[in-house]
Every structure is written in C-alpha cells, then in structure tokens.
C-alpha cells in the first residue's frame, strides 16, 4: 500500500513538468527560406513560410501559393525575428530552413552579424545553403518556381543539380562560408541569384498556369566575399575556372573548337565525368608559383571536326584540344580573381599547409602578394570513349552512299 502511494505521488512529479517544451505541428510556421536585406540603416529579415495545407491534402493544391513571404525590420537579426511575432500567428521554426539569400546591399554592408546569429543559436542549422542576390533577397523569395511548390527548396535543389551536372557553381552552406571566412584567407565565394527575363515578378500562382513565366530565378555569377563583405562579381565562365582551380569540378561539359589555340566556333563538346585538381605552391624568385595539375577523364559528347576517331592518334589530338580549352577556362578564371585581389581559391591556405612558417610571415600582406602569384597549369584529359559513333556525321556523309 505504501509503495503504491509513493508511486502515485511520484507520478504527480511527471505532471509537474508540464509537457516540457512541447510544440504541436500546427503551432509552428515552417520556414523554407530566409532573406537578408539592408534598407534605410536597418536589417530587413524576410521569411518564406510554408503553408502546409496548400501543398498536400485534398484541399485544392495549386490554387493558392504554397508559401507566404513577410518581412520584419530591426537593428539586429534576432530582434527582427522576435518582431515577426507581431504579424505571425505561429512560432517561427528555423530548423527546416533550406536557404539563406543575402541581398547585394546587405552583403556589401557585411554578413558578419548574420553569421554571428547562426553560430549562436541552436535552431539555425549550418547546413543551410547561402546565396547572394543581385536584387533584394525579398524579391528572390517572392518568386514562384515551376515544378516545385516550395521556392526555397527549389533553389536549394537547383544548386545541387548544378553542382552535380555542370559544376559552374558550387553549393555553399553556412558551414562552408564560416570555414572560409574564419580560415587563413578570410575570403570566400558565394553563388548569386538573379531574376532573369522581363523583370516582372512571378509571384502569383496563376502565372504558373502558362507554359512560360515572364521571369525566373536563376543562378547567375559568383560573388566574391572578403572579410565579411561582398567585393565583386565574376561571370559564369570565370566561375567555372574558379571551380576547376579549387577542385570542385566533378562533372561538367567542355565545349571546344577544332583548331589549336581555340580559334573558331566551338562546335564540339566533351563530358568530363571525373576530375581531380592538385595545386602545389612553390616559391620561385621571391614569387609564389602555383603548380596546378588537372587530371580529367570523360567521354566525347558531340564532334564537329574531321579525322577518323577510330585511330588512337586522332583521339589524342582531340584530348589535346579539350585540355587546351580547360586550360583557357582556368586561366580566365584565375585572371579575374587576381584582378579582384581576393583569394577565394584558397592559395593562402595551401601555402600555410605546405610552408606554415613562411605563411606566418606573409600572412599580413597576403592581400598584396596574392595578385603577384603565378600559376603553372598542366591539364591532362583522358577520353575514355567517343560514344557510339566514330567519325563525325559530316565526315561520314562524304563517303559514297550505302
């Protein structure tokens, strides 16, 4: 009897916890994307919240937008978040946030406060993808994207797709950005988003009922960040060069011309299926020279030149053309980064790894020394297959008919 009484009293203790920090699914506003802008001397935080009912369930999916976008303003991020409760019926829930878009203005002002907020709070995940945007972040968040119901998730899948199939840009998570900016070179590169098309915002569901939307969000240019500020943009081709230099190319397609030196129309292309870039810093005549060695392997996708590809010598010739093209992409990328004087290539980190003592000396004026660096490029392309046909179509046509 005594034991039962004690047990009952003990079970009352359980009730005292008051269900701890329980929160029901219909009490949270699931945020799929966050945007950060800098306007009139204040941070503008924009949240894209998911409206679950509009996505799944019987109640007419597609009639209403699956997300709602709203902004709140404050001197810092957390105050802006807490102000959101003045216009949101539910608690903002950041754990499932997919992307963070930083507006151009905010990026020029500095992303430090944002990273600070990310480091300090447990509900914000560092696996969130970061983007810069040419316009305001809010504008990007307002755009609906065909095929996907949640634009935030759509943009996240866009960068994953790009990284896997073309490697012009690379997925940058908050974690990557933090590692770079807290690293030796204090520089990083973040892919940019832009609104392509007529400029009319695709922010109504009925616009998706047409076969083409007036404008769409697309990945565009690579933002270079030094310290915590945006210092400049580089184009897609140069961005690809950066990706080659930093060993972030895995699969990509390289277009090349038939003549040596890359002159003429680039009518042929090869698919790179695997590529490894190795960079080794060396000091030569008081200058740093980066020995870049690229080993790529792939297949021929499209061929517009002469010659019989059944002969190995011809293949070697094609391989040389591809190598030349890759080298020119890399060189272009290198030149433009050098112009911006921002070591997003991680050369400084490499020097630190190979020559830690020397790095301590040059670390202070690395920003000046970086543009003086030279690269020594060696590309090795291996074509493992020419596809299902040998000669190009045009060559084959020259033969007498069957």
């Amino acid at each position, binding site marked *: 009897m005594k034991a039962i009484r004690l047990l009952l009293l003990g079970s009352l203790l359980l009730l005292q916890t008051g269900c701890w920090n329980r929160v*029901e699914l219909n009490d949270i506003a*699931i945020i799929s994307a966050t945007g950060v802008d800098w306007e009139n001397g204040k941070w503008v935080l924009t949240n894209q919240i998911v409206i679950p009912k509009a996505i799944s369930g019987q109640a007419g999916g597609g009639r209403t937008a699956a997300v709602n976008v709203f902004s709140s303003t404050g001197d810092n991020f957390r105050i802006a978040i807490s102000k959101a409760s003045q216009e949101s019926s539910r608690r903002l829930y950041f754990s499932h946030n*997919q992307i963070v878009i930083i507006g151009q203005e905010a990026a020029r002002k500095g992303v430090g406060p944002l990273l600070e907020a990310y480091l300090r709070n447990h509900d914000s995940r560092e696996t969130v993808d970061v983007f810069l945007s040419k316009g305001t972040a809010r504008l990007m968040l307002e755009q609906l994207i065909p095929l996907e119901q949640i634009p935030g998730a759509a943009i996240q899948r866009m960068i994953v797709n790009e990284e896997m199939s073309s490697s012009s840009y690379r997925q940058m998570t908050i974690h990557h950005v933090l590692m770079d900016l807290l690293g030796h070179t204090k520089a990083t590169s973040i892919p940019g988003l832009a609104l392509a098309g007529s400029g009319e915002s695709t922010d109504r569901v009925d616009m998706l009922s047409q076969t083409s939307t007036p404008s769409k969000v697309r990945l565009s240019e690579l933002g270079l960040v030094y310290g915590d500020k945006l210092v400049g943009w580089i184009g897609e081709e140069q961005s690809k060069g950066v990706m080659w230099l930093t060993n972030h190319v895995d699969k990509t397609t390289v277009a090349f011309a038939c003549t040596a030196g890359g002159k003429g129309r680039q009518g042929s292309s090869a698919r790179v299926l695997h590529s490894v870039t190795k960079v080794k810093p060396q000091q030569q005549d008081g200058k740093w020279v980066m020995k870049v060695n690229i080993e790529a392997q792939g297949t021929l996708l499209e061929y517009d030149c002469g010659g019989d590809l059944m002969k190995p010598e011809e293949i070697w010739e094609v391989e040389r053309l591809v190598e030349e093209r890759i080298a020119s992409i890399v060189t272009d990328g290198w030149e433009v980064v050098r112009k911006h004087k921002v070591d997003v290539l991680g050369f400084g980190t490499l020097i630190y790894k190979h020559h830690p003592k020397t790095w301590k000396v040059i670390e202070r004026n690395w920003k000046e020394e970086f543009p003086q660096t030279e690269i020594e490029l060696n590309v090795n392309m291996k074509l493992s297959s020419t596809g299902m046909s040998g000669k190009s179509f045009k060559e084959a046509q020259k033969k007498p008919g069957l």
Partner: protein
Amino acid sequence: MTQTKKTALTPLSPSLRANVQAVNARFGGSSDLVVRLFRSDAAPERELGLLYIEGLVNTDVINESLLAPLMSMKLPPHMEGKSDRLMEALRTSVVSIGSVKEAAALEEGIQQMTDGWCLIFVDGNAVALMAAVGGAKERAIGIPQTQTVIRGPQRAFVEELGTNISLIRRIIRSPDLHVQTHKIGTQTHSSVAVLHLHGVADQGIVKEVYRRLAAIDLDGILESGYIEEFIQDETFTMFPTLLNSERPDSVAAGLLEGRVAVLVDGTPIALIAPTTFFSFFQSAEDYYQRYDIASFVRTIRYAAYVMSMLLPALYIAVTTFHQEMLPTTLLISLAAQREGVPFPGLVEALLMEMTFEVLREAGLRMPRAIGPAISIVGALVLGQSAVQAGIVSAGMVIVVSFTAISNFVMPENNMAATSRIIRFGIMIMAGMLGFFGIFISVLFVLIHLASLRSFGVPYMSPVAPGGKSGGLWRDVFVRVPWWAIVLRPLDMKLRNPKRQRSGRKPPAQRH
C-alpha cells in the same frame, strides 16, 4: 497428495441399503446419481448395488462389462456356496474392467464416482468395489486455434486431460516421460498433471513445481490460468513468466529442452516452465521450416514487437518535440494533416489507441453474426470518417493501424498483451518528455525484465546475465541449422545439457 485435508473418514456399513442411502444423502439426492439394485445368479440371496453418475460414465461399458456378467455370473467351483467371498470373485474373475480398486470408506468411493468410476456394493460386505468406467462425451481433437502454423502438426489439445497426456506420449515415446497427477481445488478436484522428461529436466525445478502446486488451496481450478497465477515467480509484472501452448508439439519441444509442463483438466492450454523472455518470440514453425527463413521471420517478430510498443510514442515525440528530425517533405505533409486537428498529438494518439482497443475487445466478445457490422463501423466510420471530420490526422491512423498489426505477429498472445499495456505508459512519457521520456521508459522496462525470474531461471537469459557459452545463443535471435543446436537452451543446471553430439553437419556429397 490427493486429499491434503485430513477429514475423518466414514467407514462403509455392511448393509447395502445403508451404504446406498449414505451415498445418496452425500449427493443430496441428485437426480443424475444412478442406483441399480440387482441380484446375481451366483448368489441370489445377496443383493448387489451398482452406483454411478450419469454422464460421467460410458453406459455401454457398464451394460456390457459390468451388468451383464454380474447378473449372469457363476461362482468358480472352489467358491461354490461361499457367498461371503463373492466380492473377491467379482474382482478376480467377473468385472472385466482395467482399473479396479476397493474402497473401505464412503468418501473414498464418492471421490472416485465424481471421476467417472462406478461403485459396486455387495450386501453384507463393508467394502465397495470401484471400477473405472469413465467415458463422458468429449470434443474431438481439433486444429490449433490460436497458434497456427503452415508447416507442422495440426493437432491441438482438447479439454480432457487423459487425451492431452496421450497426445504428448504419442510424440515422446519414452518411459522417461514422467507424469504426476495432482488433484487441486477443494470443490472441483481438478486433475493437474505435471510432465517432465526424467534425466533431462532439472529435478530441483520439478520438485519446485510440485511444491508450488501443493500450496494451492482454492475451491476451484477452471483453467490453467488459475495455476499460472499461483505458481509464477513474480505477480506484479506485466510480463508472463510461464509459456502457454495449445500445441502438443510445442509442449513436447519444451519437455525435450528440459522444461516442465503443467496440464490442467478442462482446458486445452498447457503451461510450460521455466521460460525466458525470448521463448515468447519462438513459434513452433521456426523449427519446422528452413532455418534461414525462420531466422528472418524471427527477426521481424522482434522488430514488430518493439514497434508495437514504441511506434505511437515515437510518433508523438517526433511530431511534438523533435520536428527537426523529420525530412522536410514529410514534416510538411504531416503538418498539413494536422491542420485543424483540435487535440494535441498525445491526446490524439491516446484517443485512437483506445478506440482500437475497444474495437479489438468488441471483436472478441461480440456474437459471431455481428462481425461484419463491427468491421464496417470500425474500419470505415472510425478510421476514414475520423480523418475526414478532422478529429485525428491521417498519419496517426496509419501509425495506430501499423502498431495494431505489429502486435498480431506475436506467437504468444499473452506477451502481445503486455506491449499493449506498456505502450500507453510510454506514450504518456513521450507526450511529456519526448525522446527523453521514451528512453526513460525503455530503460525502466529493460531493468524490470532483467530482474525477473521464472522458476529461478533469469528471464532474460542467455542475454542477461551474459558471458555464458555461445552455444546458448544459437536459438535466440536467429535459429541456426538443427545440427548446430547442440545445447539445450535453458541457462540452468540440466541433468543433460546436450541434445546431440556436436559435429553432425551433413558432409557435402559428391556423386
């Protein structure tokens, strides 16, 4: 051990009439007491009386083997004229019945009558001759109802103890199979048989079973469940510490493993002791079908049991505390389902679980004819409409359904029932503390399991206490091929721990 109570015995009277009167009085003039008075050709001067209880005896046997020979008997030559030796003559040369005994006391005779024996009184003799003529109508041996298998014997126990013992004897044809019958129940005098395999079972455990049975002093034993509650080691536990079976082959398997079986007259359910937690996951079929399939199915059974205990709790914890653990798409889909559901996740889950328990109980108790109606109401009205009406979310219905189905994979119903109770406790803990609560509950259950014993054998053996020979693990989570099961599974002092010699793997034959 037949009569533990020492009551004064009434000696029989030499007068037939007085004896018949006494018996009649003892039965209170019951109408099913048949008294047949007659005279025999051998000694016409002496009246004989035949008494039995209608319905407990086989009247054909009485007519052919008792009444007819008794009436027409002739005394053997050397007994000619010695009518006082009539009783002896009856026993030695007239009554053609296998089991015959003599009773000197009234109580003795009456006790046997209730067992289906008949009494024969001879006027002038203060002794009654008793003959076993039992043969009440019994249900035929049927197929197992609760422990079904696809491959394996399709015989189940019936209510009659003698038949049940014979079913086991027909499997284990060895004189080492010892059967001890006890009478338990001060009013019902139910026969309770204890079976063990001599030379294999631990004598200490056999004696302990006898001891615990002897201590029972209840007026009636109607089912083996009564015995189970009296002889189990721990009453205050939700886990059964005795195995139940209605399959003669399962009981025989238990006996071969050195366990003790308890069969109770009047029920087809036998008890097997000692038992371990893991025995409840072993179906008879595990040993009949190929070992690889048996192992796979057994693994599924363990997983399903854990699911049936934890799934609703996990759902509650994930949806109300740890939303970040869900994939985003799933979270949004679950959130959409929960839009407009008025109750917290815990209440929703409790509501649905209770509904299912009610449905299940109704399905068991209702008259068979109403079955389809209940199914429609249960499945359609409660499941579908509750979701459409926005009282519960569709995800919750799926969780509850899967939990319910997982529960049915258990070969032993009483172990399945355990998880049904524990589930509610864990759900409440999950609703209050999330995963932390589930963790506490599971830990609590595990510690409790480790503390249990069944007739002195640790309930969780051979897993806990561990460190024992690996040979004991060959039939726990998986079943290895038969030739590799060398040891008997019980982690106790068996007289003979080996089932077979090792190294009996069939050699690869090349032709």
